[in-house]
């Protein structure tokens, strides 16, 4: 609780120019309420289960009879769950079960082995797939009541209580952080959009800033995140994916701020309230007059967190191009005003002419690059910058010059993290165990994704081929989405989150939940979604049936794997519908703007536009 209070304080210390103090109060209340609910829920479950399972606490008792046919009742695994982790992961059946990369048991096992000096990553193909960075927790004293790998028997109950409490807090913290980051992202986007609409054309009066519920959303977003079962369950089961989400959202939040705050800085400075010198890193830099330090500070944090996220699971690498674009272009909603990729400018005064100039360049650029390869695309997207700031090399393309340092910085962080991991482990073998696990899929444990059953049933001689196909398929979305949404990299990033949740090798509920909750940021596309309800219902269908079928299959021995597999297929369809709808809505927004721009006397475009009227053509 103390942590959340701190975060609240720091977030409330930087109110946006557009949101009223009222909304921040409601945000604070909502956040506190949600966290309290979560803590209560976690505690309640823990203690309810431990109370109801006291009879199972002891291991199976055996009499001294030496006959071999004595029947005895078995203990916890079948008798009843005596911890929430067990309940979630084994009880009702394997919700997003234990992906080898995220499961709590593997984390603890890895830490235990590491503390014992066993080489966890021997031969690079070990079973424990947790990142070496998690193993650095092993340096904590093992007597610490949190993340302890041993169960001290003689210690009093207060120790157990403390341990439970700390673990609950440790796994609610990432969710609270995520919620806070989410609100910051939303705020940066809103503010930036307001800036854009003010500076470029006043005609886009129906931009997000004015149309979205300014009061409601900051209080809804935390609730959306913290009270979503997609996040509660992984957190109860102590999946590390909760932390991975927080890291990713942190990267995005700071990525949003490094461009947007640069613009807003002079304005906000005046309106800064008294506790602007609070501890959060954004505050002191904002009060400084030069934009550059702030820019690089937020950018560094963002890139560092993304490097961390990619380190923890390699799949997030597809989020790198949109995040770099986001850092360079800012989070503003330009869905209604599509155009070429535009670099954010330090001062809004210059914005317009630079934009025009850059736009024309990027147009040529992106057209030229459309048919080129995927990786070069993201770079070419970022090529639009130029900026009079660098008169030294006027011949090199401005975007390239802007992208290069960002990529370089990311690579430095990534290399540094790899180095740290290698230092922790002692050799390079960890790469095979952690990143290799995403590539070669050694564990076929059921999860909500598509991979496990596909590669369970795959013929051996096609296995390598299809592994490559599935990997490449994941990469294939990056370039098109980044090109098409080059005017709004945050939206591109959001869509790629959905792709990741649907198609990554070891998805968990958290990934789906992240995609789901990020919808909250993009209120402007809601009117244009075609199938939001079917997609949501499909997702619900899949999510509700998954634990049921897994339980039937694995615990009761009724039904078989196909039932669970079918629900994961439905889940993939739901994710796919979500992504398709997101793409559609994001593109459809532009039409709205065009319509409005042409005859401004029209009030609004009705949502009930038939599809036949909105013509798309290839």
């Amino acid at each position, binding site marked *: 609780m103390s942590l959340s209070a701190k975060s609240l304080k720091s977030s409330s210390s930087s109110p946006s120019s557009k949101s009223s103090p009222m909304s921040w109060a409601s945000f604070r209340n909502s956040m506190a309420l949600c966290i309290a609910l979560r803590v209560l829920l976690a505690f309640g479950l823990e203690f309810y289960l431990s109370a109801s399972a006291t009879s199972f606490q002891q*291991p*199976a*008792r*055996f009499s*001294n*009879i*030496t*006959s*071999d046919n004595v029947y005895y009742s*078995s203990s*916890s*695994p079948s008798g009843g769950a005596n911890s929430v982790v067990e309940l979630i*992961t*084994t009880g009702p059946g394997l919700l997003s*079960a*234990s992906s080898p990369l995220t499961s709590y048991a593997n984390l*603890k*096992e890895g830490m235990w082995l590491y503390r014992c000096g066993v080489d966890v990553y021997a*031969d690079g*193909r*070990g*079973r424990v797939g947790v990142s070496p960075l998690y193993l650095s927790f092993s340096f904590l004293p093992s007597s610490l009541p949190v993340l302890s790998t041993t*169960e001290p*028997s003689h210690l009093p109950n207060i120790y157990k209580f403390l341990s439970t409490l700390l673990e609950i807090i440790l796994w609610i913290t990432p969710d609270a952080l995520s919620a806070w980051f989410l609100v910051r992202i939303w705020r940066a986007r809103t503010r930036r959009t307001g800036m854009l609409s003010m500076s470029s054309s006043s005609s886009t009066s129906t931009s997000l800033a004015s149309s979205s519920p300014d009061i409601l959303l900051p209080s809804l977003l935390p609730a959306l995140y913290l009270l979503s079962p997609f996040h509660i369950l992984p957190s109860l089961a102590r999946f590390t994916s909760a932390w991975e989400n927080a890291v990713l959202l942190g990267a995005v939040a700071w990525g949003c701020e490094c461009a947007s705050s640069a613009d807003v800085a002079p304005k906000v400075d005046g309106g800064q309230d008294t506790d602007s010198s609070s501890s959060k890193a954004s505050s002191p830099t904002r009060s400084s007059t030069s934009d550059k330090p702030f820019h690089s500070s937020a950018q560094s944090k963002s890139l560092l967190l993304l490097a961390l996220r990619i380190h923890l699971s390699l799949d997030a690498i597809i989020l790198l191009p949109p995040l770099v674009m986001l850092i360079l272009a800012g989070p503003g909603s330009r869905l209604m005003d599509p155009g070429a990729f535009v670099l954010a400018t330090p001062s809004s005064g210059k914005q317009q002419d630079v934009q025009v100039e850059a736009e024309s360049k990027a147009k040529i650029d992106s057209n030229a690059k*459309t048919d080129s390869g995927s990786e070069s695309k993201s770079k070419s997207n970022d090529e639009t910058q130029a900026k009079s700031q660098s008169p030294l090399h006027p011949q090199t393309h401005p975007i390239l010059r802007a992208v290069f340092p960002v990529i370089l910085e990311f690579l430095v962080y990534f290399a540094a993290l790899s180095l740290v991991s290698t230092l922790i482990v002692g050799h390079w073998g960890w790469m095979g165990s952690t990143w290799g696990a995403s590539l070669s899929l050694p*564990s*076929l444990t*059921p999860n909500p994704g*598509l991979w496990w*059953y596909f*590669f*369970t*049933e*795959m013929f051996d001689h096609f296995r390598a081929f299809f592994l490559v196909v599935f990997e490449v*398929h994941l990469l294939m979305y990056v370039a*098109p989405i980044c090109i*098409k949404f080059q005017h709004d990299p945050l939206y591109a990033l959001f869509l790629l989150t959905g792709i990741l949740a649907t*198609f990554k090798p070891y998805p968990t509920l958290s990934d789906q939940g992240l995609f789901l909750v990020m919808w909250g940021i993009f209120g402007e596309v809601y009117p244009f979604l075609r199938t939001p309800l079917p997609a949501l219902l499909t997702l619900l269908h899949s999510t509700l049936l998954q634990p049921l079928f897994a339980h039937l*299959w*694995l615990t009761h021995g009724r039904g078989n*794997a196909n039932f669970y597999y079918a629900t994961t297929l439905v889940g*993939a369809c739901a*994710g*796919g519908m979500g992504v*398709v709808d997101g*793409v559609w809505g994001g*593109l459809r927004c*532009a*039409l709205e703007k*065009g319509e409005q721009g*042409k005859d401004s*006397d*029209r*009030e609004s475009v009705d949502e*009930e536009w038939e599809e036949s*009227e*909105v*013509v*798309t*053509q290839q």
Partner: protein
Amino acid sequence: MLRTGLFLVFVLLSSVFCLEDATEEFEEHLSIKSLKDGRVAFSFTFKTSLRDAIPRDPRMLAFDNDDSQHYTLFPLTLGQILRQYAITELHLTLNAGKWNYDAWGYPDEPDVGVGAELRAWMAGNSISSIDDRWQGVRNSLAGLFCASLGSLDEQRTTSPRSTFPPEGALPDWGLPHELRHASHASEHVCTENLTPFLKLLPCKSRSGLAMLLNPHRIFDADWHGIGLHVLWRPEGVEVRLSVQLVSDPLRISGQKKQDWSFSSLFDRKVEKACPVAKYSRVSVELPSSGVYRVYPEPPQVKDGIAYYDLKNANEVWDIGTMWPSDFEYRITHLALSKPNPALVPFSVRRNLLGSTQDRGQLSIVLTNNEQDVLQLLYLETMPWIIQFYLHTIRVHADDALRDDLISNISYILPIPHARPATFESVLTLPGRSTITFTMDVAKAFLRYTEHPPDAQRGWDLPPAIFTPLRQSSRNSTYLGKRVYSPSLLVDLATPDFSMPYNVIIFTCSVVAFIFGSVFNVLTRKFIVVRLEPQKRPESPPSKNLDSDESGKLDTSESDVH
């Protein structure tokens, strides 16, 4: 031509006179023991010694000059395998059934783990050379014994050093010796294994003790197993072929009599001794109490053991024991009081708890029957399909958590689809106590091609092995005697074997559907086209856009972005 002929003559002569050749010896021995539960344990040992022979130095494998394979008694087929792969020591056992240590005591041959177990000591400089030879010897023995030893591949191969010390000696070649051990619990011994086994004996089954090895009766026994042991001592190479079985005369006779004899249990008698055997002995352990009669009258009784020498008298041997009264099962020792004294210092029970197909708990219950503290070396060689969570190890001694009772854990992690886990630790058993070792395990999900043909039956897990360590000086007879726990059967989740095509098609369809939809939308451009009002005169010039037919929107061409 002449020289060849002379050579042949020489070879023939030497083989004729080889009966007196001192470099090769063959002796056979049968030990018989009546067990407490009325069963009778037979242990056949056929030992062939090759004096002054040494195993092949692996460095000589490159030279094709191994001409020392002229054997008379020593089994040539086995010798060739041993020479070709430069095996120093080899143990192969094929057993069926569960050896009941509590009722039967220690077996004469300690390797009684269920299924096939193969281990070999090999010298070598490089691991790859050892692994290659290990694979070669596996396949050769599989061919020799008609057993599925080829399945003892690297997914089952471990190298636990301390549990399996070399039984003989290791030559000092300046090369490190490596142990390879593999066990396969679901491999069962059968007649097809016994037939090639008997062919390795100099007298086959035509004379001597091997006459008793009637497959119909051996494989009918409650417990039976055959073993091959090759070891080197400075005196020479020794090949020991063993057959152990535990028969139940109560069941065979159909009465409550525990009387047994060769003819009743094997349906055969020893009609003539093996002429090339140096010794041919039978020893019968006499019951400690009760009224009984051993026939024929033993010529020699020493320490409660009657010895017969089959080579002495040329007669038909039908050794047996009779009891005048019916057998009474001493049930008291099971429930009320301990057997006094216990046959084994500790008893083991090992179970896999949990009913789900993704998790479980390995539980081992050890009871120390002695007053002294006992230290056990505990070895698990677990296929990777069962994955240990070592941090969940809990040791309870008489219901109190005692994590200090486990020490010296050494653990080699499994590699999915490739390598089993090797877990060794030392368990301390306080005197007269029961300790419970529990550890959570995860059950793997296998590719559909990795499942055995009868996948729903489950997987046999190899037995755990416990070896008492030197702890107290008082009673050291059982030190180093391995105790095998029964094997376990684990139920793994199975996919639907009938639908690989369906799954591939379904998944690919969904992926293609999503991919297509996303790219369909992505490659479109949204534009609004205003129709000329005169084209649709009925369209009102109003503001509502959703009048369907009079829509101001229509197709127009757009560029593919």
